[in-house]
């Protein structure tokens, strides 16, 4: 019977158990992950099982790093996400948070587009750091994502998106995430994607300013267009954008990306 351990095929005897194989292959492992979940007890193995053995505190060898990082993904899921490409239009509060989540789940390729640089007032909600002030957002984000998951290919465009360049720059993506600040830009990308890239799922953020009312933020679908937010709370003088609610909306978007790529999960 054949299973994989740290991404490598290993032959096991039919009566060999999880703990026996772990002791044989990596005796010093103190974390045993079996099919995406930490094993709480010894158990029999089945053909095709995916086992990851980790020793806490040990820096993994380069060849096994990806398997160890993906150990908490459900088998099969990671392979599908790795094939996918997602475009993120705008790298502010929504876009930087969407990018973090999608890099952590191991989306194979991300296309980032933004023309702006990091300024101090971005740090209240956007995934940048003090020392990145002044850098182009796409460059700063790309560098940080590399530290989160080096197996994601990040393609960055320092550009203002327009009806002319959107179909060109974003057409390689399976799913497009709208992550602009200005509502006029949201209208522009919706009109452009729905008419120039018909059938391409587009996930927009609309209404996430202020604080509280977590459960007012929802995802709803209108054909190929998905809308995440409360569709009411406008960012305006007296009601700014704050990290928690922006990240809630951003992760509604990232979660919808997964549902489109993987299909709806059973409860």
């Amino acid at each position, binding site marked *: 019977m054949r299973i994989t351990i740290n991404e490598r095929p290993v032959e096991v005897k039919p009566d060999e158990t999880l703990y026996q194989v772990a002791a044989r292959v990596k005796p010093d492992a103190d974390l045993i992950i079996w099919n995406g979940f930490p094993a709480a007890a010894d158990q029999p193995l089945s053909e095709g099982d995916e086992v990851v053995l980790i020793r806490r505190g040990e820096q993994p060898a380069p060849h096994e790093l990806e398997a160890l990082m993906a150990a908490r993904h459900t088998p099969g899921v990671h392979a599908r996400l790795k094939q996918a490409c997602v475009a993120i239009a705008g790298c502010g509060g929504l876009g930087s948070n969407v990018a973090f989540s999608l890099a952590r789940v191991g989306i194979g390729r991300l296309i980032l587009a933004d023309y702006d640089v990091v300024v101090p007032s971005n740090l209240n909600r956007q995934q940048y750091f003090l020392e990145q002030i002044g850098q182009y957002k796409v460059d700063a984000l790309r560098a940080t994502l590399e530290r989160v998951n080096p197996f994601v290919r990040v393609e960055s465009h320092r550009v203002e998106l327009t009806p002319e360049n959107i179909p060109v720059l974003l057409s390689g993506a399976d799913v497009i995430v709208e992550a602009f600040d200005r509502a006029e830009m949201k209208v522009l990308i919706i009109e452009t994607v*729905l008419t120039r890239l018909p059938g391409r799922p587009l996930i927009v953020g609309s209404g996430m300013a202020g604080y509280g009312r977590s459960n007012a933020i929802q995802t709803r679908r209108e054909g190929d267009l998905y809308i995440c937010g409360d569709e009411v709370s406008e*960012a305006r003088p007296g009601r700014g954008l704050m990290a928690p609610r922006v990240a809630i909306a951003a992760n509604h978007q990232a979660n919808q990306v997964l549902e489109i790529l993987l299909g709806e999960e059973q409860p």
Partner: protein
Amino acid sequence: MIAVNGRDTEWREGLTIRIIMQENKYTSPRIVIKVNGHVVRQEQWESYAVQDGDDVLVLHLIAGG
């Protein structure tokens, strides 16, 4: 009869998107219109003739991100 965001609305000859917008006091430029699931771009609102039975979706986009 047409539907505007699911609400039954009288239809008449010559009805355009622009007229629907004016009569419903939708003044914001931050709106996307879909008719029967297809986007009608802003530059077409003046001329786009809404047909009897059409399903019109008016989507307001909210600033912030």
